[in-house]
């Protein structure tokens, strides 16, 4: 049984020492590496002394090593707290806490070889000697072991609340490792306090804290331990091959052994090199991805705020002009009616542009959501026609909705978006029609709701049709007859219809032969 304790202590000590030295050598300047090394040093002193103490058969040396192990144990909580704070970038902010922690630890360290700390060793259960805690040691348990590690855990839990997804996962590993490791370590204390209720069975658990910290670091590339493990493995196998070659009995076996060794070294070197490259590449990708996500979020926020700022003065202009036109401030002179109308329409163009740009940025970012509700498309068409009636009248063209004889069923769509699409198509048809007019029809056919908008306007060429639903393009006729807008409306219409698994297309028999726009929506 004791042998098991010796083996686990040895594993804990060696693992902590190797990881501590490796991490420190990777970057001697970084605080996180330095504090990890110090923490590992504490664990190594504690574990290796633990091993030594269990091997002792005489009381004197057993007392010395048990004092040594508690010297190491005294160091662990403060170095752990310092490491946690440097991991969370809080070491500077929490300087007072750290100073207090170091001061307490310093006092305990000075007194750790006095009988007030460890008063004696005595046989307990199957152990030949077990250290007995003095009154000061109880103070250390409260202030140091549970106090300082508790502070570290509290800081981790606090940081976890606001941490990014990746950082939170990393903190989770550290929290888990801390709880397992320190709970395991704490099972040593009852016997020291003369309470033989709990056996020190948690000793092997200490190993898990090193393992979980290592996992947290490997997974998130803090110290590149993955490379180290492969280098370590390759070196061990290489060493075995070299020894085999040296001790081979015959000359030819030696040649063969050295040959295998050389080939292994070459491939081992290439393997390590490629892994380092891959890790570097992945880290770069990870950094680029995080940066991209941050920029994307910043862009969305910027667009939302910028469009808000742009819209506020536009709202004020719209409000005042519309109230002037409604005669809220008295009847304006007749000659002002046209300028007021023009200001109003120009303002509407700006409002539409801001709305379109906002929609485009959201569509491109995949952030537009569809809110489906039972909608009567016929009612939507009627309301759009009512809104655009005056515009058509002013151009002396007709605007007709040829309703089907039977009322068509309501379908599941995002009402606002479909209204926007229908408005855009009819508005466009009016704009590009000088004579005649615009006719709208609707029907249900093959489980599809179809809206057909035909006009007697300028018509479209095949090239224009092929380009008109793309982003930032306009039909050539648009440039000639009507220069408003930057060609965003039809692109947005197409994307909104596609979000409904529908289709939108245009047809034209050629120049001055009008155009027909077809919208198809699946019936849901």
């Amino acid at each position, binding site marked *: 049984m004791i042998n098991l304790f010796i083996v686990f202590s040895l594993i804990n000590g060696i693992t902590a020492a190797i990881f501590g030295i490796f991490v420190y050598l990777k970057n001697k300047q970084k605080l996180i590496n330095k504090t990890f090394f110090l923490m590992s040093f504490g664990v190594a002193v504690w574990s290796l002394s633990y091993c030594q103490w269990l091997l002792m058969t005489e009381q004197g040396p057993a007392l010395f090593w048990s004092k040594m192990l508690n010297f190491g144990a005294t160091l662990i909580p403060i170095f752990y707290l310092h490491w946690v704070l440097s991991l969370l970038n809080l070491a500077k902010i929490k300087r007072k806490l750290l100073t207090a922690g170091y001061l307490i630890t310093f006092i305990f360290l000075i007194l750790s070889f006095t009988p007030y700390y460890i008063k004696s060793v005595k046989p307990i259960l199957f152990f030949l000697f077990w250290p007995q805690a003095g009154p000061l040691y109880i103070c250390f348990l409260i202030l140091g072991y549970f106090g300082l590690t508790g502070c570290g855990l509290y800081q981790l839990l606090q940081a976890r609340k606001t941490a990014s997804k990746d950082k939170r996962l990393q903190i989770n590993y550290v929290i888990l490792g801390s709880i397992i490791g320190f709970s395991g370590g704490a099972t040593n204390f009852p016997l020291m306090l003369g309470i033989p209720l709990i056996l020190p069975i948690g000793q092997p658990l200490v190993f898990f804290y090193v393992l979980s910290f290592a996992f947290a670091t490997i997974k998130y590339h803090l110290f590149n331990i993955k490379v180290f493990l492969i280098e370590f493995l390759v070196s061990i196998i290489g060493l075995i091959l070299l020894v085999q070659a040296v001790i081979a009995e015959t000359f030819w076996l030696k040649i063969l052994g050295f040959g295998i060794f050389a080939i292994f070294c070459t491939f081992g070197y290439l393997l390590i090199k490629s892994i380092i490259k891959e890790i570097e590449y992945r880290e770069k990708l990870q950094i680029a991805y995080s940066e991209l996500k941050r920029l994307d979020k910043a862009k969305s926020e910027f667009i939302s705020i910028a469009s*808000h700022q742009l*819209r506020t003065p*536009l*709202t*004020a202009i719209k*409000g005042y002009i*519309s*109230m002037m036109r409604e005669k809220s401030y008295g009847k304006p002179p007749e000659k002002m009616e046209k300028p007021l109308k023009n200001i109003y329409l120009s303002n509407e163009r700006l409002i539409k542009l*801001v709305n379109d740009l*906002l929609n485009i940025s959201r569509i491109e970012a995949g952030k537009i959501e569809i809110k489906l509700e039972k909608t009567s498309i016929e009612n939507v068409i009627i309301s759009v026609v009512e809104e655009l009636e005056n515009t058509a009248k002013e151009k002396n063209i007709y605007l007709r909705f040829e309703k089907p004889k039977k009322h068509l069923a309501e379908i599941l769509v995002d009402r606002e978006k479909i209204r926007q699409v229908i408005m855009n198509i009819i508005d466009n048809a009016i704009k590009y029609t000088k004579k005649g007019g615009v006719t709208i029809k609707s029907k249900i056919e093959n489980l599809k709701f179809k809206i057909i908008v035909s006009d007697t306007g300028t018509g479209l060429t095949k090239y224009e049709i092929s380009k008109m639903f793309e982003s930032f393009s306009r039909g050539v006729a648009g440039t000639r007859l009507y220069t408003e807008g930057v060609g965003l409306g039809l692109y947005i219409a197409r994307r909104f219809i596609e979000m409904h698994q529908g289709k939108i297309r245009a047809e034209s028999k050629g120049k001055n032969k009008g155009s027909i726009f077809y919208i198809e929506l699946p019936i849901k």
Partner: protein
Amino acid sequence: MKKILLIEDEKILLDIYKDKFTQAGFKIYLSSEAKKGLNLARKEKPDLIVLDILLPKENGITFLTWLRKDPKISSIPVLAFSNYDDPDIKKQAFKLGVKDYLIKTNYTPKEIIEKIKSYLK
């Protein structure tokens, strides 16, 4: 006379809507901050609250959270009325029970009055 509480921090817009709402025959209460707005809501018990979302100090979402926690005023209908068009904020507003989330720039004051009337029916 129906009572409307308008929480809006943009002075020009506040002037426009104050005029229009008064002309439309509503008794109007104004606030440019969430906290003051909440106190006014408690005092005056309006029939409808027209709420801007981006406000100084606490925003419209915080106002809605406070409103819904106070049983005396929690059932007052709220119309979110903002130029801040963010899908997440919209979602939160609807979760907190707003009747609608209107983008100011898309409505003339007259159209807003019509909307308000429809919600007061």
